């Protein structure tokens, strides 16, 4: 049986994040309402993401991007978050199929199956919410749902989910990006 490769490619995630910037603001980077940018280190000359992840870089900019650009970016971000979590769920299921406890496949445990289903239900709900008219507060709602979904999913990886180059890192980076770009601020918080 082939061992599951659990390590994640943060550089690929950074490239996907850059693609979100390109779709919302071709050739530029989107600046958050509070004046922050986060993108790949090759795109933004700034400090490494908190936690020391050098593939992502953040910096201050003087002026936030226009609201319409930020909304377009928010739409792309939740799509990226949704897609990434679905890929991690596949990885989790493959991993659980290969692990056994007391002679039984872990994926056959009801508790585990329930958690897998919970993640899938959240992803499905996020899809339905994404089909509604794009709104900033709606993107924040979807993001928060997907944060909860990511937290449930990373537990399917056991302690491995806390190791730095594993799925937990991607889950954290998506939370960091969402906190920076999607949080609506005091008016709507």
């Amino acid at each position, binding site marked *: 049986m082939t061992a599951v490769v659990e390590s994640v490619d943060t550089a690929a995630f950074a490239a996907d994040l850059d693609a979100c910037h390109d779709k919302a603001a071709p050739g530029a980077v989107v600046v958050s309402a509070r004046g922050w940018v986060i993108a790949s280190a090759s795109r933004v000359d700034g400090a490494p993401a908190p936690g020391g992840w050098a593939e992502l870089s953040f910096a201050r900019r003087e002026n936030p991007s226009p609201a319409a650009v930020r909304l377009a970016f928010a739409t792309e971000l939740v799509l990226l978050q949704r897609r990434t979590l679905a890929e991690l769920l596949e990885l989790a299921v493959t991993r659980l199929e290969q692990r056994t406890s007391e002679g039984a496949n872990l994926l056959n445990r009801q508790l585990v199956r329930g958690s897998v289903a919970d993640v899938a239900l959240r992803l499905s709900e996020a899809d339905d919410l994404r089909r509604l008219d794009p709104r900033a507060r709606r993107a924040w709602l979807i993001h928060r749902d997907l944060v909860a979904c990511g937290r449930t999913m990373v537990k399917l990886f056991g302690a491995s989910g*806390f190791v730095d180059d594993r799925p937990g890192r991607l889950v954290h980076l998506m939370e960091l990006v969402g906190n920076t770009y999607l949080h609506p601020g005091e008016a709507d918080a």
Partner: protein
Amino acid sequence: MPEQDSPRLAALRAYVREAAVGLRAVGMELDRDPSAMRRWLHLPAVRIMCGCSIPPEYLAEPLRVDGFTYDMSSCLEHTVTIEELSYGDASVMLACPGPIMSGVAVAALGDDKQRDAYYRRVAGPRPVWTFFALTEPGKGSAATELETRLEPDGDGFRLTGAKRYVGNAALAEFGVVFCRRAPGPLGIEAVLVDASARGFHAEFLPTIGMRGLRISAITLDNVRVERSQVLGFDTLKPSRRGLVGAIQTLQRFRPVLTGTAVGLCRALLDHVQTRRPGLSGVDARRLAEAADRLEAVRQNNYAVARAVDAGKIRTDRIAGAKTRAAELAEHCTLLAAELLGPASLLEDPLLDKLYRDARAFEFMEGTGHIQRLAVFQGVLKGTFLEPVA
């Protein structure tokens, strides 16, 4: 009404709280460079951790406060100590040298000679890190399923296998390894292993947070083990040895770990209060509700620790307390990041660190899934929920 601290416990709490002041700056440094702990070994908090669970007669300076002497043999006193240190910084507390979990295993299983040798070694003036190696790559922390082998070799044994997610193992001098000498639950042993032994290799696993703990992976390749290294080999029946020791250690230590999560949550909510003193409306209510939940988890954990001290090991309630604390830590970090506003994870380094550190509790000392199984057993037996009059 919550039970008030006794004068003895109040004196300990006040002393440790004072010792925890200033740990957050150290914690920030450890987050960037986990090896930095060696620069902070002079701190009072480190002295407390070094002496934790060592009998006073082995220590040049046992912990004495207001006429009371403490050796952390009380689960409640140990829990309060760890909670207060974790209010300062949980990662620093876990980075400290000393017995931590291995000491609890040696106390539970070791014979007089083994305990004496262990305490002499960890109680000296030199900082000594130790480890407690139970979890395995394929089996997690399921003690009954572990596969690391202890095989006869002349008048001793050879140890072969792998361990994962072991705190401080890659810098430790020695520690306890759980292994299998024979099939079945009675075939499990706990052995003391030197990190300098031929065939022992440990390396750090980089983690998302709680980096002071220096989680490590261990490879054991035909490591020679003398009979004298097998805990309780000459004094305990197999039915009272390895597995019992693993379970006793985990049960005794889980309220302490829960205290770590409680300390971190207290630090986090206080930080939000300090940064946003003017919170009002829904936000203020959400913060107040989190504080209520925290106090409930904290008092429950004290009750669990008191029960352990009274010899009432309630596996289901210990598991419930740990699970609730881990969930609360997750809830508090998400709430704090929300209440502190957009880009708070970029702009607030302490929040960023606590946010990442709190993720550790789900995985330490048994995942939430494993703890839920214990709660489930308690529901079946009718022991988990208290009867309501």
